[in-house]
């Protein structure tokens, strides 16, 4: 929707009132004057849901179930950051099969969420369709394969978590009930098929027409010495940050912008940064499964990818990695003696970060001696990426100024969808919704 009425010569406004195929609700405002992009505002107008406030007074064991309701697309990520934060407060660290099962659950969510994004929300942009259903008319086989692959991820989450959205089987200390070896092994067959589908998805996506565009992001992700990161690791960046998660607040800060209901985040004294698949890949590609690494090399993805449109390709590579990792975990599984470890209650602060499909997700809680939450802070990946997304939009719009409005709008939407923003999550943490001047 462009509207040049009543504007000075050479000035135009691109507005996207409702961004489609992103989770949640947002809009984009682009102001262009005399051939220059003057104003870029990615506004998130989700109504506030006040999670950080409503967690106060709740039991520490309730945090995983409550925070999972922040996002229906990545509930496992919220559950994982919450349980790790509570265990951190108690000084408990979980190893062995319970830790492996958590990784397996995360594999399921990565597969399900990435394939949803790659095949259903983002691929239509590259192939010129409004949605995956319209795309299925011409590319039925591909859409069906992708749905099958997505289902393999959901099968993991359902078997281990009880259901796909808002699993019920995660608790502080572990699980309510753990599967037997035989139950888990029912996932093997479908995962082997999923693995082939993931490999095919990488090739398929690699053939998409990617716009030429690179951005010199500062990438931020977890880094673990010997695993592609899910639940644990140090917070590292491509420009030298290497800290314990406990120091997150001293290096990163949130700030308000008047036009959006979500907070932005930046590195103190430095500026915006990027979390998510591109960042994880750039900082950890040496730790991918051999097949995922080979697939990445075969399609010409170097060790670092700075073209955001190719994030769809990195996601496909991560799906392959998650299939491999899931198969490895299932093969090595021996049930733990008990489904969970007792986590003592004490007056303490606990924090943790894990790698949601969309990037680093940080939780911090203060709890009292009775186990009640005194305060909570949750920083989702989308808040952290907002600055980088706006910078992308500014550059993309500048480079594409001679496009007609329709095409420019399409390109901007595609740019936003690259980053797979999860707007409902980000909007739960706003400090400001209305600008009154």
């Amino acid at each position: 929707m462009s509207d040049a009425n009543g504007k000075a010569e050479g000035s135009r406004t691109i507005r996207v009132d409702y961004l489609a195929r992103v989770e949640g609700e947002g809009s984009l405002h682009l102001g262009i004057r005399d051939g220059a992009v003057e104003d870029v505002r990615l506004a998130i107008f989700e109504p506030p849901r006040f999670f950080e406030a409503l967690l106060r007074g709740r039991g520490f064991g309730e945090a995983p179930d409550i925070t999972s309701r922040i996002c229906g697309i990545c509930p496992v990520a919220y559950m994982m950051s919450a349980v790790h934060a509570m265990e951190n407060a108690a000084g408990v660290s979980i190893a062995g099969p319970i830790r492996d099962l958590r990784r397996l659950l995360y594999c399921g969510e990565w597969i399900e969420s990435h394939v949803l994004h790659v095949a259903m929300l983002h691929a239509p942009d590259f192939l010129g369709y409004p949605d995956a259903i319209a795309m299925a008319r011409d590319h039925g086989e591909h859409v069906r394969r992708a749905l099958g692959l997505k289902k393999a991820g959901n099968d993991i989450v359902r078997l281990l978590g009880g259901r796909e959205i808002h699993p019920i089987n995660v608790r502080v200390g572990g699980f309510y009930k753990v599967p037997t070896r035989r139950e888990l092994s029912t996932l093997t067959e479908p995962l082997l098929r999923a693995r082939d589908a993931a490999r095919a998805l990488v090739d398929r996506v690699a053939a998409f027409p990617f716009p030429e565009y690179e951005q010199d992001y500062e990438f931020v992700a977890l880094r673990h010495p010997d695993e592609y990161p899910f639940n644990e690791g140090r917070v590292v960046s491509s420009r030298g940050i290497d800290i314990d998660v406990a120091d997150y607040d001293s290096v990163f800060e949130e700030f308000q912008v008047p036009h959006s209901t979500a907070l932005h985040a930046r590195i103190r004294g430095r500026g915006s940064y990027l979390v998510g698949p591109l960042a994880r890949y750039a900082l950890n590609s040496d730790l991918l499964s051999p097949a995922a690494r080979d697939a990445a090399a075969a399609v010409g993805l170097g060790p670092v990818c700075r073209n955001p449109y190719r994030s769809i390709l990195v996601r496909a590579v991560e799906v392959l990695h998650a299939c491999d990792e899931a198969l490895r975990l299932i093969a090595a599984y021996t049930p733990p003696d008990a489904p969970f470890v007792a986590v003592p209650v004490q007056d303490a602060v606990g924090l943790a970060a894990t790698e949601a499909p969309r990037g680093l997700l940080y939780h911090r809680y203060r709890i009292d001696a009775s186990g009640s939450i005194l305060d909570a802070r949750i920083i989702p990946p989308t808040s952290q990426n907002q600055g980088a997304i706006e910078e992308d939009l500014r550059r993309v719009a500048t480079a594409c100024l001679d496009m007609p409005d329709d095409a420019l709008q399409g390109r901007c939407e595609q740019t936003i969808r690259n980053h797979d923003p999860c707007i409902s999550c980000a909007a739960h943490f706003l400090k400001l919704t209305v600008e009154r001047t």
Partner: protein
Amino acid sequence: MMRPKLAVWKFASCDGCQLSLLDCEDELLTVADQVEIAYFMEASRATVAGPYDLSLVEGSITTAHDAERIREVRRQSKRLVTIGACATAGGIQALRNFQDVRAFTEIVYARPGYISTLAQSTPIGQHVLVDFELRGCPIDKHQLLEVIAAFIQRRRPVIRTDSVCTECKRRGTVCVMVADGTPCLGPVTQAGCGAICPSFDRGCYGCFGPTESPNTAALAAWWRRLGASDTDILRAYRNFNAWASPFREESEAHERRER
């Protein structure tokens, strides 16, 4: 024949209930053959103008703007079905309803004066006429498919209204309260999920909301015998369906006793 037009609307929510439709991996393309997906922003940038034969509404009403918008959605919809605990009971965000919203806002926001939000998070049925309410946080996708099929065929959906307990019995799950002394909301919670939690050795936490005439007080007494405190009971009833009357009243009773 013209396919009926389906629209999916979002209010304050996590998107999980509408995602259930995209999680119908085996059925999605069939559904798309049967109905015209005319408005579904999470899935498509193409939109077809109303009126719509069936609107699925996710999320609760928390802003003045949304209170207006739901009226417009109702005007455009021949049938309107709410999906999930947010849309049928106000959702987890209705926990604000028990607080002074200003105090609540100040906890989160540096400049609470700028916040434009309603004092309460309310279900869709409190604003407009609703043809059918589908329970769950999130909804069960098989129930969703039944609702869509029923509305296409112009019949009432066949959705059970008994309790989670009866589902446990049907699937042969041993009662976690009787066997392990684990507090469970199953006796007062509407069926639909397939009694997932007890099958995972966990008490039900009520995500499908109250059954038709639940005896919440009797269950609370039972929980007490299992060692639950007023705080535990208060928290159990004040959760994802906290604003549904039976759960609300029971939680308020324990709030008074807690003091």
